């Protein structure tokens, strides 16, 4: 009989322990992705399960594996994100973070978290936003408007090629898009870590999406935290589409842009001026 109270105490204690361990402490931060509302408290548990190894328990990108990873994991405490639909220098939308998580980053260790439920991913977005006070102090960015894609013509591609020269894209990405421009080896990110420009020759999907619209967004929003600037103040929307059309020709993929370019170059190669120092791109 003397054991009975101890047993009750033990079972009660165990119950309290389990409920405490299962509980999700933390924040009331939310995310909103479509009709979903993500909750940071739920995201915290998921973060511990999936993300902490690289991004670290404090979200500072200093997880146990960070030292082995190149490029380094994102530091959420800075609230600086590459793939956004919002102007440079502003916070991304929740949907931007959700999409990045879903898509993964092909040229990094960040995998596609597509198998997680949409709610799980929304919860993770909410939790990621707890790492930086900027999410409470800064005004959220407004997504840029993307005009309809201009018609694909050889003139559009050629004009894009001209812009590639004019905007000095070649200095990092190289004359042929092989990421071997004269500045390529000197690039660093916002944490002063070496960073490589995108190599169009690999044909891999772009970091921020696979569509022409995604590529357009990269020009107009820039990749914050990297040397890739926003060209929103330098080129017009129609010109950005021209640049998209040209860049597609640099990828070893079967795209309409590549087919058009290949056919044109077959009979006009001599008319092209080289890209690079002193070149005109036309």
């Amino acid at each position, binding site marked *: 009989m003397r054991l009975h109270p101890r047993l009750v105490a033990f079972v009660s204690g165990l119950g309290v322990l*389990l409920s405490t*361990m*299962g509980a999700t402490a933390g924040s009331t931060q939310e995310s909103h992705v479509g009709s979903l509302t993500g909750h940071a408290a*739920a995201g915290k*548990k998921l973060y*511990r*399960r*999936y993300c*902490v*190894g*690289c991004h670290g328990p404090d979200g500072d990108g200093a*997880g*146990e*594996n960070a030292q*082995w*990873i190149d490029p380094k994991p994102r530091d959420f405490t800075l609230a600086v994100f590459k793939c956004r639909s919002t102007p440079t220098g502003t916070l991304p939308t929740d949907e931007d973070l959700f999409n990045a998580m879903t898509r*993964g*980053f*092909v*040229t*990094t*260790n*960040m*995998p*596609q*978290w*597509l*198998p*997680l*439920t*949409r*709610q*799980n991913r929304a*919860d993770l977005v909410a939790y990621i936003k707890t790492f930086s006070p900027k999410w409470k102090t800064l005004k959220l960015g407004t997504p840029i408007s993307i005009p309809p894609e201009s018609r694909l013509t050889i003139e559009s591609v050629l004009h894009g090629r001209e812009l590639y020269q004019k905007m000095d894209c070649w200095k990092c990405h190289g004359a042929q898009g092989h990421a071997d421009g004269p500045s390529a080896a000197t690039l660093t990110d916002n944490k002063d870590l070496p960073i490589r420009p995108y190599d169009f020759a*690999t044909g*891999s999907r772009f970091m921020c999406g696979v569509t022409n619209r995604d590529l357009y967004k990269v020009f107009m929003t820039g990749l914050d935290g990297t040397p890739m600037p926003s060209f929103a103040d330098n080129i017009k929307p129609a010109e950005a589409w021209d640049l998209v059309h040209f860049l597609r020709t640099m990828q070893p993929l079967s795209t309409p842009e590549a087919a058009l370019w290949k056919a044109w170059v077959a009979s006009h190669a001599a008319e092209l001026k080289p890209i690079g120092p002193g070149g005109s791109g036309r």
Partner: protein
Amino acid sequence: MRVRITRRGGATQVSWLLSAAVTSGCLAAALALSGGRSNAYTAYSLAVHKAAAIPAFARKYGLPCSACHTAWPELNAFGQRFRDNGYQLMNDRDSPIWQNPSYIPVTFRMTPNLHRESATKQPVDAVPGDSISGLVARTITQSGFDLSGMDLWTAGTLYKNISFVLLPSSDNTGAFHFEAAFVRFDNLFSNRWVNFKVGKFELDNLVSEKRFLFLSGNGGAYQSYHFLPAGDLNDFGLGDNQIGAELSGHSENSYTRYGVAVLSSTDGEVNLPTNQSYDAYVTLSHAVDAGALGVERLGAYAYLGRRPTYFQTSGGVPIPGTGTGNKTFYRIGLSGDFFFGDFELLPFVMHASDNAYLATATAANATLPPGVRDARWNSGFVEAHYYVNPQFVLTGRWETVRMSQQADPATPSDLGNIDAYSGGVRWYPIMFSRAGLSWHTEVSAVRTRGSAFSPTDNVWTSSLFSGLDFDF
């Protein structure tokens, strides 16, 4: 006496041997005592399977164990997709060219443990050492510190979209066999629905016995995956790795999956010991996104096989590979994996049938005894996991096997029926991307209908198990 077995299909534990041996002995005695043929049934096969996880992958990609496992070794939806993609995350780091040249994707797993095994109503000589003193029913108990078998697993990518597995596995005496060995061509024609592998591999069971959370002698295998009527010639186990070729595919998030396999009728044995016959296995599953609850998956499977009923002989000795007089058997059913937040439920049901010739061990060129028919049974289980957090999981399982049609009509209808119960706790004191350690504690009990003394007896076998399950 220290008893040892070498199991063709899996690592073994002495605990298994004890419970399996006494059960087999008891049922063999029941067969003899009843004077009938094939009217006693084995409670379960001798199969023992070590589940495995591969921290080598975690080391390669820098992800914690919990990224791919609900609680290792069980896969979660993300881990399932990783496996379906040929152990690739589908970024540009998959090819071995990205790996440090010193990186070797090898994993070791073993479980030093303390366990207690017990079996009731075992036939024991009334006077020890006196075989003519008569048999009496006794409870046999064994306990002490012990070792599990060991897995030595290497797996990964040979090249982008060419993956492999090689799993030499030993029992706890160090006797090795090849538990798995295959090459898989992934995403053929740049299509995730076309993947092809050849070798020895686990059947694509939605509820995997290779990656489950039970280790004890009585709980460390699904009864449903190995049950066979006693005296049955069939050697098939749904949980046994098979040798053959598999075509499989999956949707982008692996929510929809299929697999079609053609397998040698050898139950994974090497050297083609039976004949030139083939089995087939088909599986299909689909999952839905249930929001905060998790990913809910339901699947169906069917295995159709054949086994020879007699062999060509030389001097009366069967010649391996010359089996003939094939007779059929099948296993068909549904399984699921349902999440309710941190609570996971794994239901499984199966209907099974073995041809009368197989079930009664009758050669196809002989005449069946009057009234003999196919043996049929139904089985199923419900397994539950509660993930307190990624490092602490509570487990439980209830399982049942029910004969629906005995091959010999004279056999009591419930002889061989099984009820099994398991419960346990796994605590992972460390959870990172280099290695795994779990303190595993489990209680399991199995009740089998029929003893050496009476077909109406219930024989209980039970296990208490506590071990340090480590994986490096």
